[in-house]
């Protein structure tokens, strides 16, 4: 479904991504692991069409994002949604939660997700259902982001991410700015939602254990290069790239 082919990207003279290629199948979850500065977030931006790659192709359901402009790009975009790392920055501080959550639905009036069929014309009701899907009480509808806890904000961001029922949800470090005790809750939620909606995930993280929990396949990015791509079961295999093995060692200690 998503195909990334030989993508390169440089900022100034700095090569951020170097010849990255992979695919994600419908309903599949690919974990992308890498240290800071490995180009993970840049890749996410390219797939979201927020930035242009220097070379290479990114196609979603056969449509090349890079060639699209304006309305066309907007139309294509509804199939890819995103959950960012920092839930504080990813919600507009001046809008109540419910408005943020259903904003995408307002932008695509013709999109009718299956779980919102009956209430498509009632904004508040849609927001209510979406919040319920991510385990938030409807009493939070009118709250502003600063009145929510970090975990609640991230749930709201996830609600916005799934609101268009996208075929691909990009999770860019969705748990790393949260407290340890909340990370597990969010991971569980993401896993449940994926099963419910049969979405594909590109799950970007530096946390091996989290990626292992969520994803079927894993890719390891090191300094802009894709050094390893394998099934999650093979994580401990001897055939792994030395860098992957070092990461596993560090993560699995004790």
């Amino acid at each position, binding site marked *: 479904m998503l195909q990334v082919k030989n993508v390169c990207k440089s900022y100034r003279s700095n090569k951020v991504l170097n010849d990255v290629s992979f695919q994600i199948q419908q309903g599949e979850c690919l974990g992308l692991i890498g240290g800071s500065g490995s180009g993970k977030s840049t890749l996410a931006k390219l797939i*979201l069409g927020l930035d242009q790659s220097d070379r290479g192709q990114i196609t979603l359901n056969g449509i090349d994002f890079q060639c699209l402009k304006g309305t066309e790009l907007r139309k294509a975009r509804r199939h890819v949604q995103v959950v960012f790392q920092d839930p504080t920055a990813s919600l507009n*501080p001046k809008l109540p939660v419910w408005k943020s959550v259903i904003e995408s639905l307002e*932008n695509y009036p013709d999109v009718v997700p299956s779980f919102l069929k009956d209430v498509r014309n009632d904004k508040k009701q849609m927001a209510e259902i979406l919040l319920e899907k991510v385990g938030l009480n409807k009493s939070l509808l009118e709250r502003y982001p600063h009145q929510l806890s970090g975990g609640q904000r991230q749930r709201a961001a996830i609600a916005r991410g799934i609101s268009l029922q996208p075929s691909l949800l990009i999770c860019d470090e969705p748990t790393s700015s949260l407290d340890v005790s909340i990370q597990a809750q969010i991971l569980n939620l993401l896993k449940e939602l994926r099963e419910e909606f049969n979405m594909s995930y590109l799950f970007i993280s530096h946390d091996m254990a989290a990626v292992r929990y969520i994803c079927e396949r894993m890719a390891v990015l090191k300094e802009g290069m894709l050094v390893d791509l394998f099934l999650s079961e093979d994580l401990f295999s001897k055939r792994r790239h030395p860098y992957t093995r070092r990461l596993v060692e560090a993560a699995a200690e004790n």
Partner: protein
Amino acid sequence: MKVSHILQKKPYFPSLVRINSKPITMFGLFSLSIFILITIIGPFLVPNDPFTANMAERLAPPSLTYPFGTDHMGRCIFSRLIIGSQTTLGITALVIATVILIGIPLGLLSGYVGGRFDSFVMRLADGLTALPEFILAIAIAGFLGPSLTNLMISVVLVKWISYTRVVRGIILLEREKEYVLAAKVGGCPTWKIITRHLLPQIISPVLVLATLDVGKVILIISSLSYLGLGAKPPEPEWGAMLNDGRPYFQTIPELMFYPGMAIFILVLSCNLIGEGLRDKLDIKSI
């Protein structure tokens, strides 16, 4: 420190009403509203015609007829002060409104669209900073003749820059934030991103900037009028009145005291409101 976020729970939408927490800001608000009230109902209040010269009564001391005395042409100082507030406040309001109307759209476009438009606007702004408003006013008054209109033009020509810069700065910062990116991914068209997500972020800084600028504009206008480069003599502008009083400074300092005090209190109250707003809205950059 982690403590900080436990300790500071600031309201996100501080309404204007809530400013009353600080008595000194309230004083500013109160005194500014009196000035505005005087401007509006002033013509019905004045005891004497501010324009009629009466050489027989020139430089008269305060009396029942002339509460603050008369000036060198026998005109009632009190009446001239009251009518003078119209000139000062009117011109200032006009200047600030024009500046905002030019500055915000330019800043929005320059920040969001970027590219050549942005560099053109920024170079223009750079070029204009070489001429501080006072010098520009002197240049324009010098070549095109001293008048209130020319004075306003020169102030507007310089003042829009700070608005454009502030707005552009905020836009540049905000448009990279994740909520704007998320809105883009969620299919928000550009106009909606600007109006719904970006515009609200610039309202409070611009508000603060504008209130603080009101004082500055009043000071510039009256300084230039004092030099004779703004309001023309019969016009009862406060700075021009100070200029009129100059020859009699040693003998009758009141001639200069009253208009100066009026300027001072008006500017002070604007600054008090501006500072109060700045503290309330928690804007540190201005």
